[in-house]
């Protein structure tokens, strides 16, 4: 038996554990192992290693599970509270957008009138109109940003 066949056998033994080998390769390997004591030993050692690996388990402290479940429940309540607390913000934002869309033509004319009476360039009062539209989103974003740190790792 040459070195190549031993090398092939070693490779197939490992491959059979990690991935899969074809039926032809399996047949060749079985045949080789029957005839070669060294590779048979290799195969046994690999199987033993895997059996040993599967035999290892861990001891778990039941208190750890209980503690974790309590912490998770506490955090779930916090999240629920935060979600409920955000509801008024979302309602205000929605109402603000609806009102904004409904009154847009009126507000545009208002800004135009103010701009003409104040004698400012049209670009200025147009920018004012855009800022008026963005204001609710900016307020909402600021509120969300303010809430984030307290919701972060609270309770841990």
């Amino acid at each position: 038996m040459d070195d190549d066949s031993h090398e092939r056998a070693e490779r197939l033994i490992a491959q059979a554990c990690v991935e899969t080998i074809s039926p032809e390769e399996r047949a060749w390997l079985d045949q080789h192992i029957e005839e070669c004591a060294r590779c048979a030993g290799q195969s046994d050692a690999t199987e033993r290693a895997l059996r040993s690996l599967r035999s290892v388990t861990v001891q778990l402290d039941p208190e750890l599970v209980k503690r974790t479940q309590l912490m998770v429940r506490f955090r779930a309540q916090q999240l629920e509270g935060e979600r409920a607390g955000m509801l008024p913000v979302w309602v205000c934002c929605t109402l603000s957008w609806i009102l904004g869309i409904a009154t847009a033509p009126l507000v545009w004319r208002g800004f135009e009138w103010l701009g003409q009476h104040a004698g400012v360039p049209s670009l200025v009062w147009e920018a004012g109109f855009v800022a008026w539209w963005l204001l609710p989103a900016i307020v909402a974003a600021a509120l969300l940003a303010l809430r984030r740190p307290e919701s972060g790792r609270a309770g841990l």
Partner: protein
Amino acid sequence: MELETQSLVRGLRRHDPELLDHLIGQYQFRLLRYLLYLTGRREVAEELFQETWIRVLERGSQYNGKAKFETWLFAIARHLAIDMLRRRKSPADTPASLDDLGDPGEGRAGFEPANPPGAALIDLLAAEEEGEHVRAALACLPAAYREVLMLRFQEDLQLEEIAAVTSAPLSTVKSRLYRGLAELRRQLEKDHGR
């Protein structure tokens, strides 16, 4: 199965505490075992165990049911483990890979031999002795090898799933498995030879 996954996705999205209780109970051993293999330290593993479930609660809406729940769970645990080690170390020696996670020598207390119910005393003693050998052999392996060996042969994850958990290419996962298996066999043979 599809129905189960869908209800899992919905429950996680709702932050359902009952579901979380159930999941913690169901995956307690597997998650702690994974974290023990990964970090090699019981106290760190237990801390990460708790943090992982809090993260599952907070990020539940990100689970879409396309991957197995345990794949997602182990990936979260792994990210937290790496984050924790980065936080605890100075920026100068931030670990570049899992090989730097924990001191394998400290992991021995974390691994326990299996005691199957109803086994005869002689079997229990043999299992205990065998468990001791495996603990010693595993402690000598780099964490990256321990991790993939455990995911493949204890968790029975597919290679693609291991790649997803470890955020590593499939070829890297395979090479870690081959090297890890060879190293484990060598260590066990060395132990048995003593």
